[in-house]
């Protein structure tokens, strides 16, 4: 699971108000190099929750690698964009858990795949 994916997800358990971000309890983390597409990174900057991305990097043991403040969508500094690219697409949780911030419901992540299926009584 990439952190871009994590940033796009929220808890969908019924009857809660605080859904985002899902807490991350990592067991295995890996870094896989991906092709750098500055246009895509810039576009995603306008869509993601930057604080949650910083928080996620901390949970995965990669704190301090992102600029403190969210760069704007017309950011041109390649080093900054590459740092965000790295956080969004290259740092992955292979094994671990995602946890609903309000209900504490845990969603397992196995082989990099989060299982977000809810039981009948949770929908």
């Amino acid at each position, binding site marked *: *699971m*990439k952190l*871009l*994916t994590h940033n*796009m*997800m*929220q*808890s*969908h358990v019924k009857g809660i108000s605080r859904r*985002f971000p899902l807490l991350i309890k990592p067991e295995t983390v890996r870094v896989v190099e*991906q*092709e750098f*597409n500055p*246009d*895509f990174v*810039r*576009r*995603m900057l306008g*869509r993601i929750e930057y604080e949650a991305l910083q928080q996620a990097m901390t949970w995965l043991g990669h704190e301090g690698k992102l600029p403190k403040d969210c760069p704007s969508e017309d950011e041109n500094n390649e080093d900054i964009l590459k740092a965000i690219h790295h956080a969004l*697409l290259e740092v992955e949780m292979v094994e671990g858990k995602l946890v609903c911030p309000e209900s504490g419901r845990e969603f397992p992540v196995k*082989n*990099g*795949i*989060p*299982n*977000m*299926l*809810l039981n*009948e009584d949770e*929908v």
Partner: protein
Amino acid sequence: MDFQRAGNKFSCDLKQRSLLILTGESRYSWTHQITARKNDFPNGNVRQRRNRISLTFRRCVDDEEEAARIIEKNLVKNVYDHIADDFSASRYKMWPLVEEFVDKVPKDHFVIDLGCGNGKNLLKIRDHGLGLELSSNLARICGERNIEVSVGDCTKTQLRDEICDVVISIAVLHHMSTVKRRIEALKEIGRILRPGGKAMVTSWAMKQKSEKGKTSNYAKKENSEKSTNSAHLPIHKARTNFEAQDVLVPFKGSKEGKSTDPAAKHRFYHVFMEGEMKSLALAAGYFSEIEEIYDDGNYVLFLRK
């Protein structure tokens, strides 16, 4: 009582007043029968048969929503989990219309594939896409192909509002078993798309022939055979026209996979009438443009939020 699975035969002398319960996978993979004969031969003795009564217990479900959940769990999710590898091996080519749509998506746009199967429609999209798949075995195959995926239900996704530019949902809506759930699936697409975002949704059509009389690639022959099963849904015969809108479609798969019980491979389908998907998309709200076309046995919706 005789039991059989993939060439294995097993006979069992059931004692009087005994109860035998098949659970889990055995319910699908073993067939059972009482062979018609006058005598049994337990331990080399001859025993004349008397009355034998076989009772089969089934649970009836009244509530439509519960029935929908059971249908989609047993006749969609479990079946795809069961056939995942064979299914994936037979689904490697992108449908031309989907490929054309995907190829036009700019490289900085984010694409979500709801019901992504083995991920074949995300292979070109890679990093700027995410798949959601109900079957964990199909999701595993996506993972093996380095496609970003999560296991989830496309009528109730874990995705945030307005998170993506493009949604594709190819051959998925026909697995939803009620009108309500079909609309919910389309509403989810509307919710996760950014304003102005586009979606392509395809489903099987009841009509397998175009107006010009050209038969779709799927229905080449018309030799419909009526057969029903315990769910009272007709079982569709490959390459024939559909006899009803709600049907079970067997998965044939590769030759090696044919040994197991075919009942374990019946998938639920609701095949669509002309204009049906379009009216569901209208009911979902969200969409400013709705276009429906027919192509080779499928209806295709093009939506804009």
